[in-house]
């Protein structure tokens, strides 16, 4: 009997040891990372503000240290990657001074949340907006992070883009001035001179973004035509290809889903806002506007079948901003004639002015986008307007540069789509690793966002965690999410096994 028990125990024990896998097949402590077919000894990154580590509206040391190429370089060091030098700013506040005989400040310091007022962040510039970094001081290079804030594709090819004498004329870039090897060099020439073994390229954003942030007003910023984009981009790739470096390139995220354009509602005008916090004053203001402006305009426009352009304001609901939509038929003549014939002496006296000012005016609606920078302009006096009707967005329609209308959004997104076709084709033709940054940013912009170890990142301003206080650039955490997309793509293309970074370890929005 005992024999039986002992034999069954023996069999059971044997079975357990063979069938149980309570250990990992591969323990991560035993994993040796590999560079695969790539050589990471000299990694140089090319790009714009996103590559430089720019965030909170400025370039500053902490942000640079959390730039995505810096993160990638840390991982590359595990497999023979060299040091990653960056043209660090002089301080942690950012902003730039330019010496033109005297020091002139040409870039503001970083944004920070000073406090919360009624639940909304009160955002200010650090160090009372006093910068200390002097553009004219040229650092001894070369630098591995060649990301230049504000650069478009063509700028990387442009000789003299680092010439301090061209800064005020905007033919040169103050950030590149700080690390250009000579006043006459170009970004791409300094890149090639380093003989990189590996590169990353994420450029083209500003070809559309700057235009979008300027409310698609081409007198302020231009949208690069897609054909021109392709020409510059392919020229840039051809230059890069002469180095024989392997590399990774990323496409351009849609710029119309970033917090900078999605945070301010189209209807921020409540009684409280219109009364500067005093609801009774706001209500009186609404009555006044309805009697003297919104009401008459509504009547006139209704007569011409365009009554939906401007509706009287409500005291109980949030009201839309008043904007100028240059895509609308101009009813200048009709408004002028109707006002002149109204019999109301005030309207008669202002007939021409009303026609000129409100001919293409309408209230903002879903589908329009209001840049974050427009917020501070709401209600400010427009100097060219009649004093009594000069409150921007309230009694004076916001000009083109303050608002993106649907046709402009379509125009921008169509251009980006075309840019991205060019970028993808360029990657494919040279066998470079390709990062669909657009797709990842869209994930961030979606309701579900991107989750990482229980932390949910979304594109929501301040609380979403991924975007910094400028609403355009990422936080350290957001850049880490992007760094991982680069790493995944590098690994897939070059059979390397660079470990991912942990986004939660980097900094997010700082709270007071």
């Amino acid at each position, binding site marked *: 009997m005992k024999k039986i028990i002992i034999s*069954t125990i023996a*069999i*059971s024990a044997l079975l357990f040891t063979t*069938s149980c896998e*309570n250990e990992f097949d591969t323990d991560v402590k035993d994993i040796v990372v590999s560079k695969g077919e790539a050589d990471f000894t000299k990694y140089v990154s090319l790009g714009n503000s996103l590559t430089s580590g720019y965030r909170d509206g400025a370039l500053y040391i902490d942000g640079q240290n959390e730039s995505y190429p810096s993160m990638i370089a840390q991982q590359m060091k595990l497999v023979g990657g060299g040091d990653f030098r960056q043209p660090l700013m002089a301080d942690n506040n950012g902003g730039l001074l330019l010496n033109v005989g005297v020091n002139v400040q040409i870039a503001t310091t970083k944004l920070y949340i000073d406090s*919360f007022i009624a639940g909304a962040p009160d955002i200010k510039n650090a160090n009372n907006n006093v910068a200390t970094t002097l553009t004219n001081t040229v650092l001894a290079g070369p630098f591995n992070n060649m990301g230049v804030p504000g650069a478009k594709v063509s700028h990387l090819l442009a000789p003299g883009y680092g010439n301090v004498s061209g800064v005020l004329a905007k033919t040169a870039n103050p950030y590149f001035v700080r690390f250009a090897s000579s006043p006459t060099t170009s970004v791409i020439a300094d890149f090639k001179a380093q003989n990189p073994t590996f590169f990353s390229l994420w450029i083209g954003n500003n070809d559309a973004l700057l235009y979008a942030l300027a409310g698609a007003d081409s007198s302020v910023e231009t949208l690069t035509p897609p054909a021109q984009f392709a020409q510059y981009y392919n020229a840039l790739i051809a230059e890069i290809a002469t180095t024989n470096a392997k590399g990774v390139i990323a496409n351009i995220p849609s710029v119309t889903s970033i917090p900078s354009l999605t945070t301010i509602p189209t209807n921020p005008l409540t009684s409280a806002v219109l009364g500067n916090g005093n609801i009774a004053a706001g209500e009186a203001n609404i009555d006044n506007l309805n009697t003297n402006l919104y009401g008459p305009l509504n009547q006139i426009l209704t007569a011409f079948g365009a009554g939906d352009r401007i509706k009287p304001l409500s005291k109980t609901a949030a009201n839309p901003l008043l904007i100028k939509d240059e895509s609308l038929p101009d009813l200048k003549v009709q408004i002028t004639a109707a006002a002149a014939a109204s019999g109301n002496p005030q309207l008669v006296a202002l007939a021409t002015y009303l026609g000129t000012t409100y001919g293409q005016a309408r209230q903002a609606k879903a589908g329009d986008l209001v840049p974050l920078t427009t917020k501070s302009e709401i209600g400010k006096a427009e100097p060219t307007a009649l004093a009594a009707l000069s409150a921007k967005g309230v009694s004076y329609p916001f000009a083109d540069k303050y608002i993106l209308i649907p046709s402009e959004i379509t125009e921008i997104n169509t251009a980006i789509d075309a840019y991205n076709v060019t970028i993808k084709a360029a990657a494919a033709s040279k066998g470079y690793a390709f990062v669909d940054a657009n797709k990842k940013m869209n994930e961030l912009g979606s309701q579900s966002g991107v*989750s990482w170890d*229980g932390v949910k990142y979304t594109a929501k301003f301040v609380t979403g965690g991924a975007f910094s206080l400028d609403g355009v650039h990422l936080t350290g955490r957001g850049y880490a999410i992007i760094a991982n997309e680069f790493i995944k793509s590098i690994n897939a293309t070059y059979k390397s096994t660079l470990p*991912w970074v*942990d986004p939660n370890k980097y900094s997010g929005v700082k709270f007071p």
Partner: protein
Amino acid sequence: MKKILVSTALLAGVLSYAGGFRVSLQGVKQLAMAHTSAHAEDASVAFFNPAGMSFIPSRLSIAVGGFAAGNKVTFQNTNTLQSTETDNPMGTPLYAAIAYRPIEKLSVGFSFSTPFGSTIEYPSDWEGKEMVQRLELKAFYFQPMISYKFNDWFAFGASYIYAKGDVKWDKAITQFGGELNLDSKASGHGYGFGFYFRPDPKLDVSVAYRSPVDMKAKKGTATFSFPTASIYPLLGLDASGKDSFSATLPLVEEYTIGLTYKITPKWLISADFNYHGWERYSKLTLDFGNAPVGNQPSDPTVSVSPKNFHNTKTFRLGTQYAFTDKIFGRLGAYYDESPYTDENFIPETPSYNTYVVTGGVGFKLKQFGVDVSGGYAMPQARDVKNANLGFYGQSTATAFYVGLGLSYNPF
């Protein structure tokens, strides 16, 4: 013939435990035999099946015991190559039971036990700190019970369950560089009933059901600690960063069928099948008093986390051999299913399909019984693929149990 029977039976046992935060440690003698249930030797049967009290040989029986349960969970992220091991404190589940038969047909009893609970403690800066740094769950069951013996071979018993417990949950809120501590007492009610059969002196059959208990935490305290207090008003918190919360944690129902067969007067084998209703734990809803830290668009103070547990089965097989009428040797093995898939793996209650081997010895000195037992668990390493949390990697664990039980059967 017997040889083959025994071999296959034990093999079946190997191939065939309860996952989640269920603890199967309510009887030292039972644990030694894979925590099987059809044993009516002393009052420790009370937790398993109130009807079993009617078949305890002595009219009064008292059983008490305690365990030391050690475990360690390992998580590794194959993408970032980070590896984490928990530093869990030793668990000490306890039980006590008394059964008394004032008249032949009627038995009354009381059982105290700790059927649910776990303390898991990760390094406070581990990669999953936003989900959990430390979670301590405790549940105490107080069960008065009664059993009626209809005839020589059949009894029915029922119990009322009063459950009391607490939850302490620490996690990081990295966005604000702070931490959240949830602390609450909870209580709930339930019941159990069972049938115990002895159709043949050689055969015991135990059929039992234990109802679910909803542990309601109504006056929980959520303590937020951030580097600066400026965020507190934004989150609707008082000056010390506190808010209230309520939640309900389900403790699940369990169906058990158990058999014990005496092959020889000295040798018996036992088998159990358990079915656990983990499906009830489909989500965890935390309802905060003021803090809009939830995820529901309609009410930002409500946080709903999907759990998606599913019902599980446990297969148990144990044996006891009486070397003399004073010394008993016991062995067992069981297989316990994890109540969730890889896609629903959560680090606060890590769970694996687990094989457990058990063993122990018992001594009987007149009316006193002393039993010791041990179990070694082999949780199966698994992939972690929780897209909702963005939690990916692999996890495994090790666990062991040792127990000491005393019983007293005076008359």
